[in-house]
């Protein structure tokens, strides 16, 4: 066990996996000599060499496409896109090749690969270093979309993703990269990709959240002594229906909190799924506290993302209902 930040935990996970399996190749912009702009791949070039830790030309389409080819040919590629905001020239590869390869070939080809990318706000990066684009991936059939909320989960979920025989979009909340340390095993371990985590028990309402919003939800609930159950989804697609439904049926009130904008978001899908299955259990409307439905502005980022005031207003509304 070592006290690690999320960055250190991810780095440790990559190192454990690469040590074990020489088919793993990392690639991306500045991941080699520089160790990644957030330092997630720091030290790995020196240890594993340029055949396995590859600085690439500046072309997201190429990074993803090249990784797909490696994984089609029996390697396990782990491409990094420097910021999720720059992934869009690779979307054709992600949607049309990566996500569909197993299905359209009926499993003739499978794609074990993990596409890592930092997302969300927290570094005052304005419209192009702060986006929360998870729904572009969750609405694509065939992808597994994972997002950790703490260093322990980050490493364990990453190692599970690497072992999966299907493509994973691994979204790293950059606001949590250096947000705090926790005890993380130095050795190899896994966290179940198909299980949400109940991070706090409570009776009055259930809060569904994930990734960058989790620590905020937790601190808000604790500070204000709310008797809320908090569920961290960990994997957005396919999400853990059983854990969610058990929570909803227990408390009968649901709040969904995410940093991405509201319209057509993850919250909408969760809300619809819950309504379809458990309308009789609900004592109040399902509420959402999310990022605003505008691009993320540079100077006023803290008003764009959910904050304690907005979360508490929604909680109070639900409790009074």
């Amino acid at each position, binding site marked *: 066990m070592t006290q690690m930040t999320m960055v250190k935990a991810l780095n440790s996970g990559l190192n454990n996996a690469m040590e074990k399996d020489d088919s793993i190749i990392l690639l991306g912009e500045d991941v080699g000599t520089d160790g990644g702009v957030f330092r997630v791949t720091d030290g790995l070039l020196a240890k594993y060499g340029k055949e396995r830790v590859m600085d690439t030309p500046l072309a997201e389409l190429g990074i993803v*496409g090249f990784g797909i080819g*490696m994984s089609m040919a029996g390697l396990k590629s782990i491409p990094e896109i420097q910021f999720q905001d720059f992934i869009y020239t690779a979307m054709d590869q992600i949607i*049309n090749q990566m996500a569909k390869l197993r299905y359209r070939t009926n499993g003739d080809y499978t794609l074990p690969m993990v596409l890592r990318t930092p997302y969300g706000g927290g570094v005052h990066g304005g419209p192009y270093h702060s986006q929360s684009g998870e729904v572009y991936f969750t609405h694509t059939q065939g992808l597994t979309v994972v997002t950790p909320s703490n260093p322990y989960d980050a490493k364990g979920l990453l190692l599970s993703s690497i072992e999966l025989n299907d493509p994973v979009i691994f979204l790293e909340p950059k606001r949590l990269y250096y947000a705090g340390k926790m005890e993380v095993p130095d050795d190899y371990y896994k966290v179940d990709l198909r299980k949400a985590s109940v991070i706090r028990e409570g009776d009055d309402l259930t809060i569904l959240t994930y990734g960058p919003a989790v620590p905020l939800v937790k601190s808000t609930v604790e500070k204000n002594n709310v008797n809320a159950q908090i569920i961290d989804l960990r994997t957005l697609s396919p999400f853990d229906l059983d854990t969610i439904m058990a929570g909803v049926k227990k408390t009968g009130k649901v709040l969904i909190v995410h940093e991405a904008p509201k319209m057509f978001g993850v919250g909408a899908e969760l809300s619809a799924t819950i309504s379809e299955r458990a309308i009789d259990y609900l004592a109040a409307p399902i509420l959402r506290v999310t990022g605003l439905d505008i691009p993320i502005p540079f100077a006023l980022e803290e008003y764009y993302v959910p904050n304690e005031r907005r979360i508490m207003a929604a909680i109070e509304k639900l409790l009074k209902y």
Partner: protein
Amino acid sequence: MIEETDISKEGLLTAYKNIVMERLFDKKMLNASRQGFLPFYIPLMGHEAIHIGLGMAIREEDFFYPYYRDFGVLLQMGIPMDTILSQVFATATDNEIGRDMPDHFSLKKYNIGAVITPVAGHLTSATGIAYAKKYRKQNGSVITTFGDGATSTPDFHVAMNFAGVYNLPMVFFVENNQFAISVPTYPTEDKAFNQTYEETKGAIYKKAEAYGFNGVRIDGTNFIEVYRETRKALENAESGPLLIEAMTYRMGPHSTADDPNKYRTTTVVEGGEKDPVTVSQKILKDMAILTDKDIDDINKDMEETTSQLIDKYEKAPKPDKSTMMGNLYEQEPWYISEERGDIQ
């Protein structure tokens, strides 16, 4: 000029038979599509010499990542007819169980990639496959084919740049049929139509130079030249990539949904001097390998073979609807299991 080659007389005759077979399949499939047996089809006319030459050149240790107009390459490579035709007719026995359009083969066990519809969508994948070969120190090279129109895409340029930077064992092979649907590759002289713009101003084969390797232009109607240049390229690729631009002409429509009379004067017609079938006959006659009688006999023979096959596959059973939901993920998510119940 009489061609010289290391291929035996028998090998050349087999190649010629496959050229004829491809042509006949093509006509019959167009027919099948008119009669409603095939909802969609991609004609091959004009590509036969390229396809058969490629099939001769590709070695067992090579990896081939084709595009959607490469049916004939598989014939010459010796892929079982059942595998090919059950894919084209999307039958129950297709290894993709009818999930993708005709000619979208996926044949991993033959070292063949999964054909993808988005133009050039496979070029960066092919490049990654070449890297895997190099990393694992495996013998052989990767060859990927695509159209002239594909050279306008970002994928082409990115893949070429990656292949140059990592010095990959790779052959980029352009089947230049002079059109991307209706848009000419290069400026044309066709006065009958108002062709306003073209795909590119610069010669395609020269584009390799900017990425640090060589490009060559070859005659795509001469199957012996295609074979020779491609085989050489595959052998040499182990020390770095090459771009080949093979020149031919798309004699038919782009697809069964297209009418070329709207946008061009068709200049190469069946039996004409530049028809690859005619060119092949001339080459082999000049080499004293083929006689007029052989030509007739082969035609009759192939006519019968292809008719019987098409007959069989156009009537073959389609996949059952219960197969539709499988193999999206290795571990099926709950909502997929639920949606199985929605199929009615």
